[in-house]
């Protein structure tokens, strides 16, 4: 699954560690999410949407 996490994070000038803190995950998990190698659970996807104040479907898209 593709996502716009890296772009959204860069727009806010957040580091991976900062985003990790906001989401309650580790920096390694943020990295895995950004590279598209780990698909988040629904609860985490909702947290990501809430942190970026965007609907889930505008952040995650199918391959």
């Amino acid at each position: 699954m593709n996502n716009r996490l890296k772009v959204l994070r860069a727009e806010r000038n957040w580091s991976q560690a900062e985003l990790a803190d906001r989401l309650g995950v580790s920096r390694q998990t943020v990295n895995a999410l950004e590279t598209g190698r780990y698909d988040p659970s629904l609860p985490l996807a909702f947290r990501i949407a809430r942190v970026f104040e965007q609907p889930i479907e505008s952040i995650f898209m199918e391959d």
Partner: protein
Amino acid sequence: MPSPKPPRIARYPALRYVAVMATCMVFGGVVGAAAAIMGSLGAVPVAAMAFVIALGMAGVIWMCGWWWRGLDEAAREAHKWAWWWGSTFSLAIGGVVLLTGMVALDAAQVSTALAAYDPVDLVQGGAFAVLLLQTLGYALAWVFWWARHR
């Protein structure tokens, strides 16, 4: 919509893991010492021995729960994946070695070679070999999961 607080995870999960391992060893040491002391006092009811061991095991499980709650979902996924695939692969490899040995080696020779060992030691050695193999497979699978998800 107000943003709920994110779940709290351990800031240094590796340190927490070391703490859990160290505490487990202490629990094991205490239970072992208690069992030895009880044994030296004479005939100890099996129920009393089981109670002491169960108490130590409960402490270990509680520590494992504390460690698990400090992990985020990706870290948990890595451990679940490693538990399944690491153990399965290591047992499969061990099975190939064991079955090949059973077929290829002469049973009489094996019996003669093992005759010098205490049967209890052999059983314990076998159990530890399985444990070691599974732990090794688990560790390799865990490393593989994270390498694939970087």
